[in-house]
């Protein structure tokens, strides 16, 4: 294929006066799994939104398979797995209802489900091993099952590209392994997968490549290279390197594990920086 699956060229996005993305560029080939790493506020969500065409960049452009995001959306190629906090888990829908929403782009004016739609939904449910839970209200699933339900929606949709926002947050180890296996299967079927995360330990098993984001793409390469501490320091601040410094107990467990475990980057700004830097300076 001549075109990359996802091409982001010098995309700049402002929210008011705040610079969210600063000439970010990224090219991702089809059927690859790419981990997007960066701290909160590094522009991960903004990059997702730009790829989906939810925000118009102030500068630069995004191409999906060489075409505009609008065309890719119409073709039903873009699947999206939202962050847990963005979902109303009390919403009165069954797992099957949610997966069926993946088919809406293929349906007519009133989105009446055809036989083919129903078959696609059952197949997708089976693939993520949620068939027996199909009639449950979505909030009655475990963290990992919830994620799989949304992956199933993407599968039913026939997405050739899937964007996952923090898929491992609130997911236990076993479910994490199941999701990892599932995503690898999807990639081997040709699906391009972009995962945004600040949870680093899952990445090397899962991803073919990793991207380090801090408003711009700092680095893009093999996960084991990108995730080296000196590289992470560029994106997360220097405290990642200050491991030998005494740290308060609350932050200590996260900072002790070497290489991949790394710090818990969920809140580096708070836990890491404010805790360790003052001591470093004093």
């Amino acid at each position: 294929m001549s075109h990359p699956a996802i091409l982001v060229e010098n995309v700049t996005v402002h929210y008011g006066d705040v610079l969210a993305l600063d000439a970010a560029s990224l090219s991702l080939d089809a059927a690859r799994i790419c981990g997007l790493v960066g701290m909160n506020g590094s522009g991960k969500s903004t990059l997702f939104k730009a790829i989906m065409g939810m925000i118009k960049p102030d500068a630069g452009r995004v191409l999906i398979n060489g075409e505009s995001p609008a065309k890719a959306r119409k073709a039903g190629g873009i699947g999206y797995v939202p962050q847990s906090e963005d979902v109303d888990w009390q919403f009165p829908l069954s797992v099957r209802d949610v997966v069926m929403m993946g088919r809406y782009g293929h349906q007519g004016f009133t989105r009446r489900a055809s036989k083919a739609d129903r078959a696609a939904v059952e197949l997708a449910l089976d693939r993520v091993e949620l068939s027996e839970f199909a009639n449950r209200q979505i909030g009655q699933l475990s963290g990992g099952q919830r994620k799989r339900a949304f992956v199933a929606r993407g599968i039913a949709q026939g997405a050739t590209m899937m964007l996952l926002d923090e898929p491992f947050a609130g997911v236990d180890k076993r479910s994490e392994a199941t999701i990892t296996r599932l995503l690898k299967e999807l990639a081997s079927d040709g699906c391009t997968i972009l995962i945004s995360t600040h949870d680093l330990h899952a990445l090397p098993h899962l991803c073919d490549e990793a991207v380090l984001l801090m408003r711009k793409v700092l680095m893009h390469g093999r996960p084991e290279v990108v995730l080296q501490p000196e590289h992470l320091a560029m994106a997360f601040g220097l405290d990642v390197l200050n491991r030998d410094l005494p740290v308060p107990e609350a932050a200590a467990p996260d900072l002790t594990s070497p290489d991949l475990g790394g710090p818990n980057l969920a809140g580096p700004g708070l836990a890491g920086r404010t805790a360790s830097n003052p001591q470093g300076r004093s």
Partner: protein
Amino acid sequence: MDLVNILLEPLSYDFMVRALITTALAAIVCAVLSCWLVLIGWSLMGDAVSHAVLPGVVLAYIVGAPFALGALVFALIAVTLIGVVRNTSRVKEDAAIGIVFTSLFALGLVLISVTPSQTDLNHIIFGNLLGVSIPDLIQVLVLGVVAFTILILKRRDLTLYAFDPTHAHAIGLSPKRLGALLLGLLALTSVVALQTVGVVLVVAMLIIPGATAYLLTDRFSRMLVIAPVISAVCSIAGIYISYYLDTASGAMVVLTQGAAFAAVYLFSPRQGLIGTRLAKARRKKAVALAA
């Protein structure tokens, strides 16, 4: 007097028959719409739009245009103003809503006070269920059927919009347009319900049935049946009660819906206060026995 007589006696009056038809219709349309409003969290928006249409209705009356047109225009103005105030000042959304709808409502009241034939227009505020004329009935019928039909045909898209607008966008639908459609239907439905309970109480019809149904089921498709059934039954019951007790009919309709919500809140098997407490006690007992 036996039950049949109790039910039939009011029907011998034409105005009661018209009142019952209008109420049932408004109750059903409002209830269907309320299912989405309570799930999106648009209750306050429903309150705002239903109040803000008042000046539109009054102006439409003055120039002799259809009420629905004036209402739609002012619903649009209200929503736009709320968005502008929220996005361009440090005022938060709930305050923006409060400022805009009360101001527009007040404008409506002022317009009423300077318009001749005040009695007619005062009915818009508190409803005039027992004075529904044939043209009123026809207008409610047409608007109600239009709103109902669109809601039902587009129910899956609207539910998707309520649940996950990002996915809607990702598969090529326009969340913006779906939101606008829902707001338009909200304005239309407000006009339908004006006649029944008046501007002040429309919001009750737009929230209570959906909230009640939400406590009774985990399936949206079932909410769409439960809410209008409860709402219609309560509204008709409310009118009968107001007939025999000689109370304000619109207010009685809302009171009955509120009572139904209270009953469900307390006794709903899965979500009800008493049901969940009992289940908790049973679990505790089972644990104690097992130990």
